[in-house]
């Protein structure tokens, strides 16, 4: 019964008709009445929802509209916003540092996300076998997911990847003369990617839950037919866990686009030697809050939204081809 809740046309909450196994069991005269909510139900619903409604209007929808307006203006927080049309956007495309930030972020998302998910899946498959000490390992592997987002982790990362520190020394022993990753504009992004891969625990746990739901009979049947390890992986495991894979890809990708704290700290608040870790949000922060270009930063925010929206749309569109839901159809 694996099925992802976040998908277009997914089951609405409480819409029991689409919950398998429950359909029809409670039909009868009340069904019709229950469909048409009474006045009291409406009032109760809105009252319970009122914190969310207020939060949505004042902290999300309102600010979004305002930010869209600001993105067409020049605004420094102290003088009134001045309408400049599409100038922020044309400035942006002409700005080499903006292009650098797009490049750095794309690199981070394109390399970090797949490597992290591959690590998560590999370790989840290891832990899916029933062995002694399994739950201890599961907990230990999850720990970095919580620590990783902190300033502490970023500081430790800087120490581990700087000149003459452990990573550097290990490389020398292995015969590479690369030097510390932190001071090297070519390499610092990989230190940052390593920090995100280290936090594979959260997707690992979700993969593990998915793996547990794969019916063992499928593997047994495949073994009878003489299928090897890889065949079983590609023809059974991967299709069976594709809904969880989709969920992880979606969340991790969106998450990666928004990296800020670790990039900022790992590079000592400077976004890196030669802008090497100038991730998108780092540049947005710098333009908005250091250079007081609130209009420009708003425009950047909207482009990020469009980019994330596009990626999400492409993922949802592609899921028809590779995500297999058990109920068929969806």
């Amino acid at each position, binding site marked *: 019964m694996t099925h992802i809740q976040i998908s277009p046309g997914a089951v609405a909450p409480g819409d029991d008709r689409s919950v398998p196994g429950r359909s029809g069991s409670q039909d009868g005269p009340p069904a019709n009445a229950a469909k048409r909510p009474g006045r009291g139900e409406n009032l109760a619903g809105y009252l319970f929802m009122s914190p969310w409604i207020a939060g*949505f209007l004042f902290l999300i929808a309102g600010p979004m509209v305002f930010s869209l307006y600001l993105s067409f203006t020049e605004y420094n927080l102290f003088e009134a916003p001045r309408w400049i049309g599409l100038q922020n956007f044309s400035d942006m495309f002409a700005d080499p540092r903006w292009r650098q930030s797009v490049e750095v972020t794309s690199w981070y998302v394109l390399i970090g996300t797949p490597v992290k998910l591959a690590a998560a899946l590999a370790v989840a498959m290891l832990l899916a076998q029933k062995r002694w000490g399994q739950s201890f390992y599961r907990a230990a592997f999850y720990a970095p997911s919580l620590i990783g987002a902190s300033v502490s982790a970023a500081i*430790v990362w800087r120490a581990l990847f700087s000149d003459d520190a452990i990573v550097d020394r290990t490389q020398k022993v292995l015969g590479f003369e690369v030097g510390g990753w932190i001071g090297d504009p070519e390499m610092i992004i990989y230190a940052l990617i390593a920090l995100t891969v280290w936090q594979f625990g959260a997707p690992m746990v979700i993969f593990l839950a998915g793996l547990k739901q794969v019916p063992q009979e499928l593997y047994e049947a495949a073994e009878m037919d003489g299928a090897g390890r890889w065949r079983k992986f590609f023809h059974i495991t991967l299709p069976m866990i594709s809904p969880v894979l989709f969920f992880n890809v979606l969340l991790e990708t969106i998450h990666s686009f928004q990296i800020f704290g670790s990039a900022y700290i790992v590079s000592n608040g400077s976004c890196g030697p030669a802008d090497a870790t100038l991730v998108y949000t780092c540049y947005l922060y710098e333009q908005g809050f250091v250079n007081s270009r609130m209009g420009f930063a708003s425009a950047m925010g909207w482009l990020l939204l469009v980019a994330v929206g596009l990626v999400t749309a492409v993922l949802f569109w592609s899921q028809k081809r590779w995500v297999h839901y058990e109920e068929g159809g969806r």
Partner: protein
Amino acid sequence: MSLRYAAVRRRGPGALAWHLGALVVLAVVLYPVVWTIGASFKPSADIIGALDLFPADPIGDNYTRLTEGIADIPISTFFLNSAYIAVGSVVGVVLSCSLTAYAFAKVRFAGRNIMFAVMIGTLLLPYHVLIIPQYVLFQKLELINTFTPLLIGKYLATDAFFVFLMVQFMRGLPKELDEAARLDGCGHLRTYWSIVMPLCRPALVTSAIFTFINAWNDFMGPLLYLNEPDKYTVSMGLKMFIDQDAVADYGGMIAMSLVALLPVLAFFVAFQRYLIDGMATSGLKG
């Protein structure tokens, strides 16, 4: 037959390989943590260059130096500020998200499906579209350098992830329970508080722990909204440390990093089961 076959295989040489594999992953994953513990007892000069994990003769200087504080601010100030924000966030999230989730899961009101779709949509919304206008809003309301901007969203259920988690959980509760409560004359408020909330404890605890840890680790929020050192959180205190002496006091910085992690690690050790199960169920329903 096949069961027995599997059992035999499980005890074979595979077990050794499995444990070896698990230990290798364990070493990679825990190395940075163990390294930090060791380094916090080394003199600053030895932290980067020395390869041994633990110092031959450990020193406590790095910790005693922390008692002097950072730039004349005792580190307890940072900890109290962080604790205030983290605990305040937990209360807000548990109350506001559970109310919202109850409405989605248990009340049949007009517009519910649309609102649910919108709520899920906000889950995918990058926060960075909102930071400029929210900053302007809080600046106009003269709330910069207060904790309000960091807390208000928690009381207004803007953490869609937790609403989603609680909706998932509430939908799993047997329908008969709240139907029985309704027949006995309980209103929604009573049903919410006396029936649904106690049964939802696992989802509430998961959300509470995640909220605490996220609030404790948060860096961008305090960076934007707090500008006087006596309001700084632990993350900001650490940043001050870096700004102050990037090279000189590596020992103090590492010791402070570890101390800053202690609440997170303590929470993790105490509640890891809830956290991990909560994470596992968030992607699945079945």
